């Protein structure tokens, strides 16, 4: 099983969920793929379906419309998986906390579906790509202990 754990750590596939972000976090998530940051060197790739994913990169403030879809996407991700709440909006709805069209918040919405979900918070507005890499490294460390 140590082998499997190693494999999981070395091959985190990311699915990107935008729950109502302003784009900046999304751009920075994409930025991770590009030559400057190239997360493929850690075995991470962006995939097109949550079924393939090990990491849900959630950006955005989780609007009312996006919330049930986020919950569904989480459910459709094979476990074990890590939810990465990227940016102020995904962490705590940031500047949009009081707006009327907000859902419950990314972590609350996901915990409502699965109380044991692993949620990594990456603060920043948006976080620097370096910060996301650091978060990924921390996630790998966490997986080691699973």
């Amino acid at each position, binding site marked *: 099983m140590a082998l499997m754990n190693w494999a999981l750590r070395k091959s985190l596939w990311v699915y990107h969920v935008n729950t109502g972000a302003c784009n900046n976090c999304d751009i920075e998530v994409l930025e991770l793929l590009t030559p400057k940051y190239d997360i493929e060197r850690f075995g991470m790739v962006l995939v097109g379906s949550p079924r393939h994913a090990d990491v849900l990169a959630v950006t955005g403030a989780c609007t*009312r*419309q996006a919330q*049930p879809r986020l*919950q*569904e996407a989480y*459910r459709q991700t094979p476990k074990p998986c890590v939810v990465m709440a990227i940016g102020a909006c995904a962490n705590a709805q940031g500047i949009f906390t*009081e707006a*009327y*069209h907000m*859902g419950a918040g990314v972590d609350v919405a996901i915990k409502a579906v699965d109380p044991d979900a692993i949620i990594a918070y990456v603060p920043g507005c948006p976080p620097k790509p370096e910060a996301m890499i650091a978060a990924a490294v921390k996630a790998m460390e966490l997986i080691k202990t699973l």
Partner: protein
Amino acid sequence: MSEFVAESQTPSPLEGYVGEILSALGDAVFAVEQCDERRGFARIDPARTVEVARKMFVMDGARFVTATGLDVRDGIDVLYHWAFEPAGVVVTLKALAAGPDITLDSIANDVPAANWIEREMHDLLGVNFPNHPDMRRLILDDSWPEGVYPLRKDFDQIKDRPPLPAIPPAPEEDLI
């Protein structure tokens, strides 16, 4: 009527390019609130929005920018913004949607660009556009109750928030 503007600004005389545009609309214009080199604000007859829109639409270089809905005491003020390039002119025509059912004629049939903004004003402010080609919900979520208009002044964004949508149920968990 918007009391602030009405109080603070005296109607300017029609001048320049903006004046030409406004005068081309004829008596559909009730009052000109501002008219200078690059900007024009005028109030038009709410019953004649379509006619005005048609006239504006065929003007040389005219482009429908957007419309703004604005909750004022007498109803909803709808501001149609038209841009004219390359003069860099923006003309704003105001029409008041008043009355109990807050209705205005839709210009979306003549100006496709107005399609979404009218749907949006219907969503957020409750303005009715009876002859709109496609009046479905655009901008509010599926679980948002009908008849709650968040941009109205009597809506408090924290207190009046409708309950959140339910968590989608999991499909039955039978093993293969």
